[in-house]
């Protein structure tokens, strides 16, 4: 079982610093998790550390491929509101 990082990662290094298993590595486009090393923090912490510090929503996925931090959960911006604003900006 392992978590994974997808391409919305902004390469902020935060997860890299807090992983107890040294499972996270820098890779060309963005940081990645080595599935062989990732323990999901079992035995070390109650919560997966990378997903507890990552500032970007929908960037770290659980073993089932679900976003641990879904849209709106970290910024507090309701997804509809975000979409509305982005549509408006793009229409300018």
């Amino acid at each position, binding site marked *: 079982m392992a978590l994974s990082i997808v391409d919305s990662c902004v390469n902020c290094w*935060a997860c890299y610093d807090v992983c107890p298993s040294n499972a996270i590595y820098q890779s060309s486009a963005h940081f990645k998790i080595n599935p062989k090393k990732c323990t999901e923090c079992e035995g070390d912490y*109650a*919560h997966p550390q990378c997903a*507890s510090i990552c500032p970007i929503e929908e960037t770290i996925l659980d073993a089932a491929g679900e976003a641990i931090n879904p849209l709106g959960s*970290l910024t507090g*911006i309701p997804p509809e509101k*975000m979409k509305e604003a982005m549509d408006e900006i793009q229409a300018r």
Partner: protein
Amino acid sequence: MQLNVLGQENGGEAAASSCASGSCGSDNDQMAALPEAIREKVKNHPCYSEEAHHYFARMHVAVAPACNIQCHYCNRKYDCSNESRPGVVSELLTPEEAVMKTKAVAANIPQMTVLGIAGPGDPLANPGRTFDTFRMLSEQAPDIKLCVSTNGLALPDAVEELAKHNIDHVTITINCVDPAVGAKIYPWIYWNNKRIYGEKAAKILIQQQQKGLEMLVEKGILVKVNSVMIPGVNDEHLKEVSRIVKEKGAFLHNVMPLISEAEHGTFYGIMGQRGPEPEELQDLQDACAGDMNMMRHCRQCRADAVGLLGEDRGEEFTLDKIAAMDIDYDSAMKTRAVVHAGIMEELEEKEEKRKRLAAVNVPASADIIPEDTRPVLMAVATSGGGLINQHFGHAEEFLIYEASPKGVRFISHRKVDQYCIGGDTCGEKESALAGSIRALKGCESVLCSKIGYEPWSLLEEAGIVPNGEHAMEPIEEAVMALYKEMIASGALAEKAPEAESISA
């Protein structure tokens, strides 16, 4: 897990980051209120001295990407929008690269006296990268002052280490002392291996900030506090913040405006939270000033800014360009010492001259301005050196001064879109010029070295009198001279008829 807020089991290493505070600000006359020891420390620091910032340069190195909190004015997908300006991706440096860059800049811009680490995340949430950089620099470039900005969450754990590297300036961004206010600014923090939300998070952050502030003051390390003014959220509250941090020994409190464009994608930007109007900001800065020096010239620098405040020469020092430079730091240090001594001498001469002039002026009865003469705001175009030495059309920003019977006081700087960048290549000259004129709202005159015919007439129409007569003169003296000219000519009569009786 039991939260141990005041102890710091386990907080430090894990700290991730928020956008760290910029490290600039100042004001000169209030410098006088500072104790001698502090004045000595900050007199050649461009961020803390209105005078010095015309002469000395600073730089930031971006070695600290991680953050341990989220602020509603920050979006990590871009750069931090408040304390490092948005829109441009920083070149993240390793500590070794940062040291190389710092030495290259110091050798090429000998006026550079201060190296700061301010992000792009929170420097103390990146203790390894931040402290490696400081350690190498204090060994290899001992003539450079070091400073650091932080959101404060990991600060108590870092104080020992900071003291070791002889870092004498720390900036803490403190936006509140009340968790209920904090919950409207910080959605979450990463603390003791958990993400914590809401008021609980804000309470921990506030406790860490206050504790860190106290510990630094105890160690004799200078502390500046930055606050972001968010209308309707913490504007009134910042007066209390100001009182508390000063009581605890912060030597400066710098209030900065919220930047919240929707396109930055921040919570405040998307949700339509507005930033303060210039007048609101100025009122709050005045209310918080007290007897303490405020930093009106603060430029809210990017985390990788290089050069004099208001300019960014980072482009000249990209990694590939640095690699091609051959830096002999020992000989550079000698040149730097000579340049610094020269500048200090010039500053001291200016100070002497100011005192002399003040002494001469007082008895000259014709010069006394009645106390009820109304104050006037004036804009100044300068490219540094404390002189009026910039062409109106080349000014990327104006310094705003207030002249009043009490003297001349620096208020702020205002950015403008350039309507002309040397040559007539720009198509939308007029509309951009209109933008500059809007930026000068409230000013009655603008002092510059030269100005074109076209902007001249547009400025006059807008009620702003352009003035090129004081080109190359020291700013404060020129502003006062023009104020007296205005009084003499009756220009202030409309709102203050009693000014008519004055002769300059």
